[in-house]
């Protein structure tokens, strides 16, 4: 089969470009994170990050915002999808395709929309102020960021969870009801255990999505809010203090964080209902 090996040649350009734009840069970061400013090998970049209250704060804020926005996004998506499956198909199709479109609504345009809606003089802020519900709202704080992150998590959560709910059969709910189980017990003992793998998987994707998000927070706060992606970008493309090796260490920590989350997810999955069965 000589032409099988000729065919292999067709793979080359693809592999080459993928290596140049994805694999080599990643390998470079890995290596650079262990090289100090003086060109020596060692862990000093990592030590610098972990000794600095500033970077530790960035990591903490990143984790907090990601965790809360993922949990909130997931909860809203679960409630939404559950109801979405019970309404008539025209409304459902409309909402699903709208969710599809809004899943592209993130980053800079989203930040602008939120400033208009919830900025200091935002429409919703003014409305709620006039109604006497709030004194004022500061979008540029941790709470504000959790809110805006949650917004872009919802469509993703809905799209990922919608097919998973196929696993729930309508007659299970009916059987449970016949046997005297209320909605709470049905969810606690039937629906949630069946959905666990899907929920965990979606949660992990949402978490990774939030941890790596840069555009939204950058556009909203002009890069002034202290989260890991903003710090990484400032170290390689900021205008005050550049240190690509430190940026590499920080980037590797971010990737490691995602890896840990994935491993924990796999471990939890093995212990769950589906893993045992």
């Amino acid at each position, binding site marked *: 089969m000589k032409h*099988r090996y000729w*065919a*292999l040649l*067709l*793979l080359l350009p*693809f592999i080459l*470009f*993928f290596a*140049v*734009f*994805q694999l080599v*840069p*990643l390998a470079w*970061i890995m290596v*650079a994170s262990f090289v100090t400013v003086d060109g020596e090998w060692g862990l000093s970049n990592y030590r610098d990050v972990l000794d600095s209250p500033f970077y530790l704060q960035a990591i903490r804020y990143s984790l907090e915002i990601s965790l809360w926005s993922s949990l909130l996004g997931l909860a*809203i998506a679960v*409630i*939404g999808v559950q*109801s*979405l499956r*019970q*309404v008539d198909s025209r*409304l*459902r199709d409309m909402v699903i395709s709208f969710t*599809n479109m*809004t899943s*592209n*609504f993130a*980053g*800079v*345009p*989203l930040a*602008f*929309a939120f*400033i*208009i*809606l919830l900025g200091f*003089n935002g*429409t*919703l802020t*003014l*409305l709620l102020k006039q109604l006497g519900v709030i004194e004022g709202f500061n979008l540029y704080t941790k709470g504000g960021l959790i809110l805006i992150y949650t*917004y872009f998590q*919802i469509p993703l959560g*809905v799209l990922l969870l919608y097919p998973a709910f196929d696993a729930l059969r309508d007659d299970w709910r009916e059987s449970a009801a016949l046997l005297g189980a209320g909605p709470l017990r049905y969810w606690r003992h039937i629906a949630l255990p069946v959905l666990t793998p899907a929920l965990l998987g979606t949660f992990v994707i949402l978490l*990774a999505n939030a941890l*790596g998000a*840069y*555009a939204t927070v*950058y*556009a909203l706060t002009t890069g002034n809010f202290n989260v890991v992606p903003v710090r*990484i*970008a400032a*170290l*390689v*493309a900021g205008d005050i203090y550049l240190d*690509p090796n430190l940026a590499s260490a920080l*980037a590797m920590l*971010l*990737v490691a964080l995602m890896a840990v989350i994935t491993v924990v997810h796999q471990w939890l999955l093995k212990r769950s209902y589906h893993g045992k069965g």
Partner: protein
Amino acid sequence: MARASVYHRLVVWLLLLVLVLPLAATLLYSLATQWSASLLPAGLTFDWYLRLWSEPRFLAAFGRSLLVCVGALAFACLLVLPAMFVIAYHFPRLDAVMNVLILLPFAVPPVVSSVGLLQLFAGGPLALVGTPWILIGCYFTIALPFLYRALTNNLQAIELRDLMDAAHLLGASTFRAALSVVLPNLRKGLVVAVLLSFSFLIGEFVFANLLVGTRYETLQVYLNNMRNGSGHFTSALVISYFMVVLLVTWAASRLNRDPSSS
């Protein structure tokens, strides 16, 4: 049961409301003559759109975005299609390797990749930073997982081996058969995947801002640079951008649904 269905409808409408709200506010703002410190705009106008669409800097940024996205997608198709065909036909075992590889652009956030990209392509033989070429390369990797997944699903559905055997029997070379038998069968899936990739590539900001910035200002970078301009003007910009995405995703879903167009 009736009470339950009212509840479900309420939840769905509430979800829709939450998703629509930021967009609706932006739309209203883009149409308002003036809107500050009051609940409703003072008056409505199309002026901001007229101003936006006659702004040379906006048109240039829009053109650059189109060029980079279309370029990256064309490039991606050129590389992915033959590679995919070879893997599916000759080396099915490589599919497992590919599935791991294409996870990388998903798993590694752009802000992380750009650290390495900035160092590697700032100087030397490949001084790509600041040029549209680096964006085309990066966007190729972003679109790759998506294109690959969509197309392999499609390839698996068409009985590749039987098709190729039939073409060979009729005297076609492998190349000829791939080009005039397999490719037309993938056309619809390809168009849908390309349209959907386009809709998220045109929203890409991180690579564009970090690797190129104002040296080749794309739509998203322009939008970000306009932050201190009039809110009405930027709203018109956001809505215009969203309309483009809307149009493209709508076309994709139409193509996907309509069975007669294949």
